[in-house]
């Protein structure tokens, strides 16, 4: 908007300025013209005085040598001398008679090598009869040994009756006068005034030496041809204004030349002012918009990003710093509250889940095989009836140990040796019942005895090996329990040489099955799910079996590093 406005304003300004400038220059040139004209006129009046002088006529006409003539001569000489004295701008005054008599200045010698009658100013004066002939600037050689530059005013001297020419009056004006007149006018930026005569000869030009040497050219032809009092032209990539004023009296033209650029200083200043203003406005506009963006757009963007983070679950990173006191700020505050609440809720849920898991675990822990209890108690009764007191004592105390462990104080983790003891108790009870049918060996690396593991993982596997592997075997069965460390893992193996299981059974052994639960109560699935619940990825369970050969159950648990919490 402002650009368009500026453009038109500038155009208008330039137009007006140019018009005013042309007017101004024209006036200036006219003034110069007028000055010169006045000056010439003044000179003409002086000439006129001499011209009309009776003494001049007498000097020329009367017989030479007579007293009157001599007197006339003397008086004319005096007058010329006086005039020359007073007016420094007059270089030469001469009275030249057609009859050959000549009076020159103070009586100086005329240049013998110059023929006066051949001179153009002489001829012109006579041709004109009335009025003055004015020459262009030229070298005057009428005085011997002198070659000054002058402008010559010449007029015919007539007899008393005014009918015929008797001579010519010569008045030479110092060229310097014209030069001074023209130099008086100061124009900006190398502007200048020059003068040409009717024919187009240069009377005065500030750069005349350059022009005569061919170093510069002036558009004289254009000036002479121009019908208007001004024109604008382009020379050497610069635009110039020429204003012309012609003197009817002398036929001379005064020409003012100035660069349009210099004239348009005002409009240039205006243009610069406009541009600076626009630029400043632009600066303000841009900084305003930057400021606005800071206050509004940026906060919105931050809010957007925080919401994204919250969506992804990164609640802490989603917390934003509220700086603004405006509506965006309020939005931000609300978002923060919401974010915190969600975070809180999720924490609580996670906690609840954990608790649930814990209680589940506990519940699972409590599941010891009831069948085993019954059978063991029956064995005790039977042995007691048979009077085998030692065995009764042993079996009862081992059972007590077992029960104590399984109902124990709810510790999830126990050292490995305790778990092995539990397995030993169980095995000793079972050995007493199965006697030769069951053999067992325990090989556990003492180095890992104190490693904390969850309880009740080995005994169920042993139970499984006995009931599914060995019990139905014709011959005696062997169980090997191994415990060692390998690759930063605790490895526990329960291996039997029982009847083994089919591939299909083996493949689904870790799945929750109703049939399993009914039979064993706890079983492999229990161990497996508890392992996973507690250790997650850190524990693995493997089952290798071959029908007729045996089975090996393997548990691997990644060894805990110091400082880690389970």
């Amino acid at each position: 908007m402002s650009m368009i406005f500026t453009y038109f304003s500038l155009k208008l300004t330039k137009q007006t300025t140019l018009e005013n400038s042309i007017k101004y220059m024209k006036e200036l040139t006219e003034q110069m013209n007028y000055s010169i004209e006045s000056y010439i006129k003044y000179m003409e009046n002086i000439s006129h005085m001499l011209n009309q002088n009776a003494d001049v006529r007498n000097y020329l006409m009367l017989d030479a040598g007579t007293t009157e003539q001599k007197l006339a001569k003397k008086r004319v000489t005096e007058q010329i001398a006086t005039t020359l004295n007073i007016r420094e701008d007059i270089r030469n005054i001469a009275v030249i008679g057609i009859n050959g008599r000549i009076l020159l200045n103070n009586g100086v010698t005329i240049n013998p090598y110059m023929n006066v009658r051949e001179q153009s100013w002489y001829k012109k004066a006579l041709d004109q009869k009335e009025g003055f002939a004015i020459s262009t600037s030229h070298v005057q050689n009428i005085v011997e040994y002198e070659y000054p530059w002058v402008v010559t005013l010449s007029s015919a001297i007539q007899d008393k009756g005014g009918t015929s020419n008797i001579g010519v009056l010569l008045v030479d004006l110092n060229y310097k006068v014209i030069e001074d007149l023209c130099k008086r006018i100061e124009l900006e930026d190398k502007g200048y005034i020059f003068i040409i005569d009717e024919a187009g000869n240069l009377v005065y030009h500030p750069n005349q030496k350059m022009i005569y040497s061919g170093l510069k050219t002036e558009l004289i032809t254009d000036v002479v041809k121009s019908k208007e009092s001004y024109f604008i032209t382009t020379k050497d990539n610069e635009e110039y204004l020429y204003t012309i004023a012609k003197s009817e009296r002398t036929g001379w033209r005064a020409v003012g030349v100035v660069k349009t650029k210099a004239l348009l200083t005002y409009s240039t200043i205006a243009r610069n002012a406009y541009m600076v203003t626009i630029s400043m406005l632009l600066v303000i506009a841009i900084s305003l918009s930057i400021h606005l963006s800071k206050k509004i757009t940026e906060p919105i963007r931050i809010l957007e990003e925080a919401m994204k983070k919250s969506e992804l679950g990164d609640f802490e990173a989603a917390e934003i710093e509220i700086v603004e006191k405006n509506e965006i700020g309020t939005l931000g505050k609300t978002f923060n509250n919401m974010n915190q609440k969600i975070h809180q809720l999720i924490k609580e849920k996670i906690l609840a889940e954990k608790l649930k898991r814990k209680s589940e675990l506990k519940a699972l822990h409590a599941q010891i095989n009831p069948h085993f209890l019954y059978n063991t108690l029956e064995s005790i009764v039977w042995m007691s009836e048979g009077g085998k007191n030692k065995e009764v004592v042993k079996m009862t105390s081992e059972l007590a140990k077992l029960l104590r462990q399984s109902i124990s104080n709810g510790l999830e983790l126990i050292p490995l040796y305790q778990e092995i003891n539990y397995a030993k108790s169980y095995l000793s009870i079972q050995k007493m019942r199965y006697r030769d049918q069951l053999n067992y060996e325990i090989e556990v690396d003492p180095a890992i005895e104190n490693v904390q593991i969850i309880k009740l993982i080995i005994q169920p596997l042993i139970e499984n090996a006995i009931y599914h592997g060995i019990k139905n075997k014709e011959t005696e069965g062997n169980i090997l329990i191994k415990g060692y460390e390998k690759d930063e893992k605790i490895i526990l193996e329960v291996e039997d040489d029982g009847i083994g299981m089919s591939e299909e059974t083996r493949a689904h052994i870790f799945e929750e099955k109703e049939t399993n639960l009914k039979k064993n109560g706890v079983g492999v699935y229990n161990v497996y799910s508890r392992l996973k619940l507690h250790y997650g990825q850190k524990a693995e369970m493997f089952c290798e079996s071959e029908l007729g050969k045996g089975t090996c159950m393997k548990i691997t648990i990644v060894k805990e590093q110091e400082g880690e919490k389970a």
Partner: protein
Amino acid sequence: MKILKKVLLILMIAVVLYISLSRGVELKQNKNFSIIFIPKVVEPNNDFWNLVIEGASEAKIEYEIKLEVMAPEKEGSYEKQNEIILEAISKRPDAIILAAEDYEKTAPLAQKIKDNGIKLLIVDAGVKDQIEDVMIATNNFEAGIKMGSRIKKLLVDDGTVAIMSHSKMTSTAMQRESGIRVALNDREGRIVESYECGSDSDKAYENTIKAVKEHENLKVIAALNQYTSIGVARAIKDLNLVDQIKVVGFDNSKEQIKYLEEGIYDSITIQNPFYMGYISVEKAVKLLQGEVIEKNINTGSTLITKENMYIGMNQRLLFPF
């Protein structure tokens, strides 16, 4: 969005800068070169060199540069000029404009100027091997041709010609004489003697008297520079031999113009000193600004006679304001 804002900001800064700078750019042009001008002489009567210097000064104003003129008070001594050249070099100007005093003996100094990384322009008179970057001078050979053609016209019957030269070792003299001889063509044999006068009018005066005595049928004397021309004219005037012997002179001091009017000179061949001075400075500036300048610039010469001396351009050339 952000990028657009930045672009706008930059654009606007650029606009402001452009405006403020565009005013300053105009003034950057000439960087104030400093030039030393060494003409052959600076003395009040030597209109020729005074005009050359005037032209140079005019160009100095036009191009806004620093110009210093260093010259001896008398023409003719190459030693003195060599001294001045050395002094000029020590001032470390950007360029030196030199009018060589001696074709051979000034040459090593001219080389020294170039060796010091200063641009060298020769004005009027040069050195051998053309050591300079640019030569600005009257085509003296051409001027000699003009003189020679004129002499040929003046030679009737079996008249003879004498030449008053200013120096056998100055290029200007050598070339002018050469031009005359070539123009005379088959009449070259009419040249009976070439006298060496130095730049001394009195010597030329004496030599003229000698020549008249020694050679009968002497019809034309050609004088090759201002000083010799003046000496010859004075001698001819004093000996009253104006009608017998025609003088074809060179240059246009005031005295010479008088002699031309009086008829002592048949003609004088004039140069364009103002133009020469101006152009030498102008070309020096252009050379320093990195432009390619033609190696030889002819500033021209004109043969002036009594008949044409007041006509149009001749008047301006003859009588510079």
